């Protein structure tokens, strides 16, 4: 289990700290074709003396079709990074480019339109309780422009088939198991044909085996679509499914090949045990 490390962080100064010497910029290296290009992203919560820095000059880029897993102790800023990339929060400092378009300074309306290109999968499945599995997925498909009702409904059914739930079309979330609910959530996210999938601990509510199955499914479907994935996870058993592993601590990112190796070792021993 990761331990809480936030307390070790010294209290940041009241005003945003002066920009440091730029670190090597992975986004630049990756070029402008990246799905996500984050450069020098910093973020704070609170006001005045209560102000607390959660992201400190984060740089990250994700290529189309790439699956990136983000790990780190809780409270280190992973979820904040996810909400910023997901256009759910206004960018304060630095740059987040989604498919070449800058999010810093985007209006509410622009962010709302940007979100249509992003699929989101939550820790809790966040399905609409009053809708059947099929209708939930169709809420995703309904976001696609210029598609008739029947085409959108057929799309919803196809996605449910793709996640192996073709026999549960008319069930309410209440009647589905945790793994099934998460599969519906995946189908819903993918039905909107996103170019980027954000997932926040999608396996947290699942047992290890179901969790791994769900993430394998997610990775396979996303790759088929050329859709990038940024997934926050604590689950060591799924780390080997990543193309790239990124670790975050105290608002900073560390990319470490050795970490991935270690994780792979844990995962293989975990799956045997």
């Amino acid at each position, binding site marked *: 289990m990761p331990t809480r490390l936030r307390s070790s962080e010294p209290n940041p100064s009241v005003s945003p700290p002066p920009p440091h010497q730029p670190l090597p910029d992975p986004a630049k290296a990756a070029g402008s074709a990246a799905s996500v290009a984050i450069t020098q992203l910093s973020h704070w919560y609170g006001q005045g003396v209560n102000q607390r820095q959660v992201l400190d000059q984060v740089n990250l880029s994700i290529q189309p079709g790439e699956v990136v897993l983000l790990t780190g102790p809780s409270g280190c800023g992973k979820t904040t990074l996810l909400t910023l990339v997901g256009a759910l929060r206004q960018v304060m400092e630095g740059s987040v480019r989604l498919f070449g378009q800058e999010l810093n300074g985007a209006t509410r309306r622009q962010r709302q339109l940007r979100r249509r290109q992003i699929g989101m999968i939550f820790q809790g499945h966040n399905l609409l309780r009053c*809708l059947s599995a099929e209708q939930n997925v169709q809420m995703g498909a309904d976001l696609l422009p210029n598609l008739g009702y029947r085409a959108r409904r057929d799309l919803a059914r196809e996605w449910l088939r793709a996640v192996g739930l073709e026999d549960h079309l008319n069930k309410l979330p209440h009647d589905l198991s945790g793994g099934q609910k998460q599969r519906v959530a995946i189908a819903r996210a993918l039905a909107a044909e996103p170019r980027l999938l954000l997932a926040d601990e999608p396996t947290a509510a699942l047992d290890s085996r179901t969790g791994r199955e769900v993430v394998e499914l997610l990775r396979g479907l996303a790759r088929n679509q050329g859709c990038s994935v940024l997934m926050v996870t604590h689950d060591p058993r799924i780390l080997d499914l990543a193309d790239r592993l990124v670790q975050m601590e105290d608002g900073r990112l560390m990319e470490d090949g050795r970490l991935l190796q270690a994780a792979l070792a844990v995962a293989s021993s975990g799956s045997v045990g």
Partner: protein
Amino acid sequence: MIGALSALWPSRRIPLAWLLLSRQPGRLLVALAGISFAGILMFLQLGFRDGLFDASVILHKRFDADLVLLSPRTMSSIAMAGFPRRRLVQVMADPAVAGTTPVHWTMLLWRNPQTRTTRSILALGFDPGDPLFSDSDLASKANVLSQHGRVLFDELSRPEFGPVASWFRQGRTIETEVAGKRVRVGGLVALGPSFGADGNLLTSSETFLTLVPNNPAGSIELGLIRLRPGEAAEAVAKRLRAQLPNDVTIYTKQGFADFEQDYWRSSTAIGFIFSLGTAMGFVVGCVIVYQILHSDVSDHLPEYATLMAMGYPLPQLLGVVAREGLLLALMGYLPSWLAAQALYGLIRDATKLPVAMDNQRGLLVFAMILAMCLGSALMAMRKLGDADPAEIF
């Protein structure tokens, strides 16, 4: 069927508003019961108000007249003052006038032939040969009044006057006292009670003067004037007003009814009481619908936030709440309309008031229910502003 529908309506969406409501049938039922209750309350209050005002002019509307003469001291049907009968004779001089009927009008005490208790009844005295009401069935019954001491009893009078109608139909001879004098019921008419009078009886002028011996000679309370076809009542009234002395006032038939209704409207609290009752129904309905919609939005706030995170614009979600309000209004109105129909029937039986559903009131109550539901939806929408998609991760 569904295939045809989806072909006709390609931009169709999941009916989220309907599903949000219908997947919680308990709450939906409570909401509909509340809205229907508010609707029934409004229907009843408005029905009573209109019924009472309509009842006050039941007689006024039936008189066979284009114009009427009244004393300027007359305030309402329960306080009719007399004026000289010769004014009605003067009116005959006008070439536009086809005929007149002098009418005596006062409240007298009727003795219940069964229980022997007395009760105030409205008595009209007229010459049986003269037309009184525009409907014709009175003319044949009026013959019996040419015999002295006979009266026609209003079978729609309140039951406190005794089982006169049923006894009469059984063929029994009904003799009782009016104003201390013996009268015999010679027939039945159907008029109906009003504010001022719980019952009515008709008699000849001759019998009337026996019942009211101290009636000033040559004094009547109401003069009916019939005009020749094609004459404009308002123009003739204006001409007559100029000719006649100021011991009479002239109304058109409609003006006479309005005069009576104005009295009850202005000198009693009835209009205010029932309008207030209607407003109470409206407020109660608002509170119920707002409560339901507000808790519905609060309960589903994470789901609304999820939809916002997926890229649904806020106005579209506000539309869902508005549609919920619209659906509640439609579904709540129908049962209230049906229940009001049934209750109006009960009220008619119990009070003999002419309370019935009319389109105007039906539309008014529907408009109020709609305003209630959409207004509450608008209030509940403010809660949607609390849905922050950044909080759901």
